[in-house]
């Protein structure tokens, strides 16, 4: 009773709020982190990409046409979205109807149903999809008109027949969520089929290599690229994908090594399973990475000869338009596509009927809108799972329709913006069409702050 009366009186004196003051250094999130670390002795592993706020494409806006420029009729005049990748050396470049591609995601991380759905959607939209760390599945090859085959450090399931059946080869140096790190697939997702494809024992916590087994550094990469060209008789484009860190130098080295197409993945890019400290603290934002990549290609006078694909947190048609205006030839989307399939949705769709997945989110200790539990293999909507029952929650035709609709929406938004800027071809969007809303974004993207001619940290070269 004495205690109660003391607290009561403290409240009367107006001091109680001080006893509830949260520390900025040790806030509740940090306390939870420390206590979790103390309990487990193991770092946290999770899926998806960086959650922290970083400067991004939302910090840019377009200068639509007006008196100084005139627009195209939004619903009538032609606006081309055709995109050709791999024109430098390949006899058979990749020709796409839209500049929006589907990023590399592994069978293993995703179910075979999902891989099939992505292939179907990409084919309907005239774009490409990409394999991942774990080899090519029959489902995705059969359903994809244009399939990019990844050559990763692990070489799981790597097969020269798949090299020959692919439409392009993508040598993966790193990914935005974990530049410098190898893949990770926890045991619960290494089911018999995944294990067999990767030549691993079932159920192992699989940690892939972070360096390629048969080459080291850019001089070797040049020779590796030529080997792939020889094997494919110089027909197929060779992409090189880097996680965004020292982008200016890495892109230059990749171009020097003979790549046809460079893929740069910024820090907001997703992953199926990676240490949280890696996701949040290694790599630079996509916006900054894109600026450096374009600078590198222009510095080498290779614009139009080597194509650039940017990825890492591309979500909307406006994001696509801004990326292209800044100098990308195409974008690649992973997480947005998963969300289109139903990731973080309250329901999954079975034969046209919505079924609640809330109880399963709850079992994972999460809720729709917050879930990043791809690593557990217990995806409540059947996207990132290898569980025989859960994977049925994503039906290929339903998934394909949703992804197709998503890509279609993005493409309509892209052409809407391009027409408003007076462009008959989305690839005519240019830096001059953009301004920045924040000082940080202006500095990273090297664009003027809106309403000014000020580009922080940049002085125009004097004539």
């Amino acid at each position: 009773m004495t205690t109660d009366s003391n607290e009561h009186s403290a409240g009367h004196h107006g001091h109680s709020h001080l006893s509830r003051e949260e520390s900025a250094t040790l806030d509740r999130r940090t306390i939870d982190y420390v206590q979790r670390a103390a309990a487990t002795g193991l770092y946290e592993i999770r899926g998806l990409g960086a959650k922290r706020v970083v400067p991004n494409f939302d910090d840019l806006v377009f200068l639509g046409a007006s008196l100084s420029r005139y627009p195209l009729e939004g619903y009538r005049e032609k606006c081309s979205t055709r995109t050709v990748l791999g024109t430098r050396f390949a006899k058979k470049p990749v020709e796409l109807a839209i500049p929006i591609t589907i990023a590399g995601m592994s069978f293993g991380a995703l179910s075979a149903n999902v891989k099939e759905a992505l292939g179907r959607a990409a084919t309907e939209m005239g774009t490409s999809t990409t394999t991942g760390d774990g080899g090519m599945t029959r489902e995705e090859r059969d359903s994809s008109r244009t399939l990019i085959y990844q050559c990763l450090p692990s070489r799981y399931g790597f097969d020269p027949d798949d090299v020959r059946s692919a439409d392009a080869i993508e040598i993966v140096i790193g990914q935005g969520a974990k530049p410098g790190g190898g893949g990770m697939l926890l045991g619960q997702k290494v089911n018999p089929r995944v294990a067999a494809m990767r030549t691993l024992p079932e159920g192992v916590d699989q940690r892939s290599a972070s360096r390629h087994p048969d080459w080291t550094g850019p001089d070797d990469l040049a020779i590796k690229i030529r080997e792939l060209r020889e094997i494919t008789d110089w027909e197929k484009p060779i992409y090189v994908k880097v996680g965004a860190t020292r982008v200016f130098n890495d892109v230059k080295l990749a171009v020097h090594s003979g790549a046809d197409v460079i893929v740069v993945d910024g820090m907001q890019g997703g992953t199926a399973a990676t240490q949280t400290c890696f996701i949040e603290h290694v790599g630079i934002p996509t916006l900054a990475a894109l600026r450096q990549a374009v600078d590198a290609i222009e510095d080498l006078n290779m614009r139009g000869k080597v194509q650039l694909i940017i990825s890492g947190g591309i979500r909307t048609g406006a994001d696509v338009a801004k990326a292209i205006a800044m100098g990308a030839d195409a974008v690649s989307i992973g997480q947005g596509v998963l969300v289109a399939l139903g990731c973080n949705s309250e329901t999954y769709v079975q034969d046209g009927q919505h079924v609640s997945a809330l109880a399963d989110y709850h079992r994972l200790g999460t809720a729709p809108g917050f879930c990043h539990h791809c690593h557990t293999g217990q995806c409540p909507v059947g996207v990132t799972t290898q569980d025989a029952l859960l994977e049925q929650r994503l039906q290929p035709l339903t998934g394909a329709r949703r992804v197709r609709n998503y890509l279609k929406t993005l493409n309509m938004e892209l052409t809407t913006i391009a027409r408003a800027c007076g462009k008959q071809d989305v690839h005519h969007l240019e830096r001059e069409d953009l301004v920045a809303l924040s000082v940080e974004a202006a500095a990273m993207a090297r664009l003027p702050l809106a309403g000014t001619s000020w580009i922080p940290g940049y002085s125009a070269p004097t004539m």
Partner: protein
Amino acid sequence: MAHLKQFDLAVTTLREVNHYLHKQMVADGVQSVSILNPDGAHSLACGMNAPADIEIDGHVGYYVAGMNKYASVTVNGNAGPGAAENMMSGFVRVRGFASTSAAASARGGCMVIEGDASTRCGISLKGADIVVGGDVGSFSGFMAQAGRMVICGDAGDALGDSLYEAVIYVRGKVKSLGADAQYETMADADRASVAELLGVAGFKHDPAEFRRIASARKLYHWNADANQEY
């Protein structure tokens, strides 16, 4: 010999040779190909997808017989990095030395190196067999997942680091084992494996002289008490 085709890389380009091997050889009914003056060429006879005996007289650069399927490739000389990398089937013999990453990630077939192999021999091995007549460098058998390695000489540091299910047999000294690799008792099946592979390679050693190295399987799963020592 009938069905024999000869190339001289001093006068023919690498591209022409590989194009022939990929696109024309089978149609011509050629089963034996001889290649002269490779002069360190990279990617020679890579991407083979048909049975044939290919003999290369001289030293080759990177990725000789890379991703080989079906073919039997012999290098009468030394080979650069990544010889027979990701081989699927067939047979590759290097009569001299092999540089780093020989038979990296190879999934099937057999590679014989009569001399020494450098570092990372058999890295990420996925099912192929490797027989090395001499020594192997550091980190050989790194993360090897399946397949067999027979090393007739000595091994450098960190042999078999992070092994999965591949098995390594060594006759000579081992400078050090890598993380999670351990010596195990040789069983009859092991001696039979070694005898079989020595026979294929044409090396005359007593299988009883070899030691078996395999995974302790302590890194297969996260272990909260391991303090991330992996």
